[in-house]
């Protein structure tokens, strides 16, 4: 049996971390775009669109991400195509991310005081103008901290894609463990790598939120 040095283990894990980062970015961006569409459906005036957006969130927040991954993997397979793991992983994570971002952003839009809508309306602005020039700029500022905070959940969520066979950090952890028989070291290192990715984002989110609260208190 070949001897693995700590560096060998770490190097392999580090290489796999690229895929965790890439998948996180894709999920976050894709989820953001889909989330924005769902957000406008939710806060718009069309009842059917509102309902759809609501049900969407209900389903994707009410079921395990792992199940969503399985369903994407086997569901896409029903179309007769051979689904690569990365595709199913991307699709499921985007759908899941969107469901959480809509709710976060909706909260931000609703936290803008109703007097702002009224002031804008009394100046003759239409719904879209009120939204575009008065509400969204304020909601956006409030949304930054929780959105950054949620990116941590996305990164952690990518770990589940190892279960449908996408080779990222967690999968690499299992593979390396099977080769080295050093689960304590390997999973410890895997955890540290995730921590290195997530912690700076968590901290920035906290700092941003504190800044915003201080700014608000000055009003």
């Amino acid at each position: 049996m070949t001897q693995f040095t700590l560096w060998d283990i770490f190097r392999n894990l580090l290489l796999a971390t690229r895929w965790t980062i890439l998948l996180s970015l894709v999920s976050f961006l894709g989820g953001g775009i889909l989330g924005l569409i769902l957000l406008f459906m939710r806060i718009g005036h069309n009842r059917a669109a509102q309902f759809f957006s609501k049900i969407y969130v209900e389903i994707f927040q009410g079921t395990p991400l792992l199940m969503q991954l399985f369903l994407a993997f086997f569901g896409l397979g029903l179309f007769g195509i051979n689904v690569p793991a990365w595709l199913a992983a991307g699709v499921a994570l985007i759908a899941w991310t969107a469901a959480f971002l809509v709710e976060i952003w909706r909260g931000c839009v609703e936290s803008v005081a109703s007097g702002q809508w009224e002031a804008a309306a009394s100046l003759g602005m239409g719904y879209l103008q009120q939204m575009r020039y008065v509400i969204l700029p304020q909601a956006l500022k409030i949304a930054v901290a929780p959105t950054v905070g949620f990116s941590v959940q996305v990164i952690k969520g990518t770990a589940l894609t190892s279960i449908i066979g996408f080779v990222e950090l967690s999968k690499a952890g299992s593979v390396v463990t099977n080769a080295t028989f050093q689960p304590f070291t390997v999973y410890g290192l895997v955890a540290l790598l995730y921590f290195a990715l997530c912690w700076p984002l968590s901290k920035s989110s906290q700092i941003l939120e504190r800044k915003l609260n201080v700014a608000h208190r000055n009003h």
Partner: protein
Amino acid sequence: MSLIEITEVRKSFGPNEVLKGINLDIEPGEVIAIIGKSGSGKSTLLRCINGLESINSGSISVAGAQLLPDELHLKALRLKVGMIFQQFNLFPHLTAGGNVILSQAVVKKTPKPEAEAIARQMLDRVGLAAKFDAYPDELSGGQQQRVAIARALAMRPIALLCDEITSALDPELVGEVLAVVRSLAAEGMTLLMVTHEMKFARDVCSRVVFMHHGKVHEIGRPEAVFANPQTPELKQFLGML
């Protein structure tokens, strides 16, 4: 024809009828004070005139144009009638100047340089030319309310609705806002204001409207209304102060 015609206006929130048939005609250049107990429907009346609430029956017209609840008619109405709120409702993400420019640029499509020139002019008119680049949270309450007035004026309205615009202010800041309103009245602006400043109402207003339980209970010239109230409700209201 009057400038603002309010005819048999009724408004309910669920089972609660808040306006029970309001009739009021306002001539150009008039300054009307609306007084009355809390909950008597004063704010609701102003909000209906500005289309922030839809009415259940009756009609409201401003300068001959009917108030209808579609976006086009609402916009036309709101270009004629400005509104000032108790809580100022300045846009916190924009400077004082930005607040005054925004709706000109967005709604009236006024070119940027012109909108800015008008904004400076309006801020100057309320005595805040120096605060063009200040953000709302850097201004006192009185200054914020004056910016809100400048913002409404920049749309060149023919009438202004003011809902208790000094009620959220510290006592020492009330005077500076009322001084601005007084100068607007002197220039001939049509004003419809809910107020608790009785002395101001007596000095400046052409008519006083006393609202009670969703109706215009008494109306007349300030001398008459204050010196010689006709109904027990108004007597009690004035005595309470």
